[in-house]
């Protein structure tokens, strides 16, 4: 059996809980840095994006109304599953040019990051909500609510930690998301999708697309159903374009840099606050 032909993985995207190729059937070629194998990666079309947004929209009310405790359990479960898949992820990161030590570190940090944010699920409300002093007979309080459908343009530089540190705080806060994984580092998409799929993350809550940023940025920033946009990068033109487009339906826009996804600098409950809305209630208490 020495001449056995290995079965290689078909890289797919993750839309509405399903492993999908692009509806356009387009792919782009990608060569691994270590073994110089070439592989095909799905090239998402704007229709794939639209389908994902619809899935995220439909999943939103279910996900945001789950108890914080349950969301914590599910995100913690992602960490558990990732732990068991470490070897595969390390391999994929190495194929994307990392040396084995750095790859191992990145996988460990990713798992720890998930545990960190799982812990915040039932705590950030206490931290950021408030009872406000008002000079009228009202009980006045402010509470947080999930923003809604979040479009994420994941960092180009990192194929795992960058993606997860963009998604985790959004999920913890009860949002659903559509994430564009960079064309430079797309290899972990399938493993990440399989992790989400086996961790009881409901279909549509996280959608992962691979494709060209330049091609999809317009739809990511204009779609009226998208309530917030998180952009990782420093391209001035892209940022201007996003902010201009987002004004159309007043999307909440966060422009994030390297420190917002690197392990130590990114761990913060304020990351959750990026996709939260504050609701203030005036409750009459009588004289």
């Amino acid at each position: 059996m020495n001449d056995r032909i290995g079965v290689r993985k078909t890289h797919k995207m993750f839309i509405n809980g399903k492993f999908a190729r692009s509806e356009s059937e387009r792919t782009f070629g990608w060569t691994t840095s270590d073994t110089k194998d070439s592989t095909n990666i799905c090239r998402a079309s704007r229709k794939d994006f639209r389908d994902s947004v619809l899935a995220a929209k439909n999943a939103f009310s279910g996900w945001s109304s789950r108890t914080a405790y349950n969301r914590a359990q599910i995100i913690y479960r992602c960490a558990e599953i990732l732990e068991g898949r470490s070897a595969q992820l390390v391999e994929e990161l190495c194929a994307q040019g990392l040396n084995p030590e750095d790859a191992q570190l990145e996988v460990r940090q990713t798992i720890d990051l998930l545990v960190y944010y799982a812990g915040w699920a039932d705590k950030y409300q206490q931290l950021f909500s408030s009872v406000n002093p008002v000079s009228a007979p009202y009980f006045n309080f402010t509470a947080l609510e999930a923003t809604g459908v979040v479009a994420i343009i994941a960092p180009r530089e990192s194929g795992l930690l960058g993606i997860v540190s963009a998604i985790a705080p959004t999920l913890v806060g009860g949002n659903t998301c559509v994430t564009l994984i960079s064309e430079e580092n797309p290899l972990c998409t399938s493993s990440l999708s399989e992790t989400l799929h086996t961790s009881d993350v409901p279909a549509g809550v996280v959608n992962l697309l691979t494709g060209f940023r330049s091609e999809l940025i317009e739809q990511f920033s204009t779609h009226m159903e998208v309530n917030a946009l998180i952009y990782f990068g420093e391209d001035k033109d892209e940022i201007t374009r996003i902010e201009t487009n987002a004004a159309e339906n007043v999307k909440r826009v966060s422009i994030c840099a390297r420190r917002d996804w690197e392990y130590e600098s990114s761990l913060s409950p304020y990351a959750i606050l990026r996709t939260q809305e504050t609701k203030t209630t005036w409750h009459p208490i009588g004289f």
Partner: protein
Amino acid sequence: MKLSETKVDQIGVQERVARLQSRSIKADSKKEALTLALSMIDLTTLEGRDSPNKVRQLCYKATHLHESFPGLPHVAAICVYAPMIRTAKEALQGSTVKVAAVATAFPSGMTSLETKLDEVKQAAQDGADEIDMVISRGRFLSGDFDYVAEEINRVKEACGSAHLKVILETGELVTLDNVRTASDIAMAAGADFIKTSTGKIQPAATPEVTLVMMQAIKDFYHKNGRKVGLKPAGGISKSKQAIQYLVMLRETLGQDWLNPDLFRFGASSLANDILMQVVKQNTGIYQSASYFSLD
């Protein structure tokens, strides 16, 4: 009443539907199809909780589909229960939107013919431009075609000048052969329109039954020279579906039927979906239902 001789080839219908549904309508053709579909809608509210203000709101929507987008057509009609006719007429004064009312113990049709005729006369008197009646499916399925034909005939008389749409409720007719027979009976008995469903029974309108009814209309036209209209109703909520129906219509009955006088969609949420598509086609931006009126 002579039994219809035409038998429907079910596999043939399914294949033809599948073939017609694979048509891709893009760009300018899509824009035109969307506008046409919009003008063919019978904006419908048929719920026990309908109130005069809900009907007024619907009438306003019928004439002001999307204010920020000038040049859109209005819908063809609004479709309500009989007690709402006067309210709707008042609210639609000055516009050409018609008022259609369901009658004859809608949706079941389970009452005596006399009661049905009284109901229809009252609706016509109240000013309904169109009356949507249901056939007696129980009688039809037990083979009493004469009764069904007689009933349609009498209701047609009671309508006076109002147009009569005959609802076959295809979801209860079991086979496509029955759909064909019921269509033939309704047209021979004087229906101005035949309509698939009440919307209260699943399945409601499907492309298959609609195609069979189109074919029946075509045969009837060739034989008798009278153009009968068609109204698929229930379950058509997406513009893509609406365009597929229009493709079937164009390919089966031809250009003559591509207007609101001979083809209608019975729908409540279709209008908003089409509007979202129209805006998308014109601006290039994907839309969200949050920015359109509530259904």
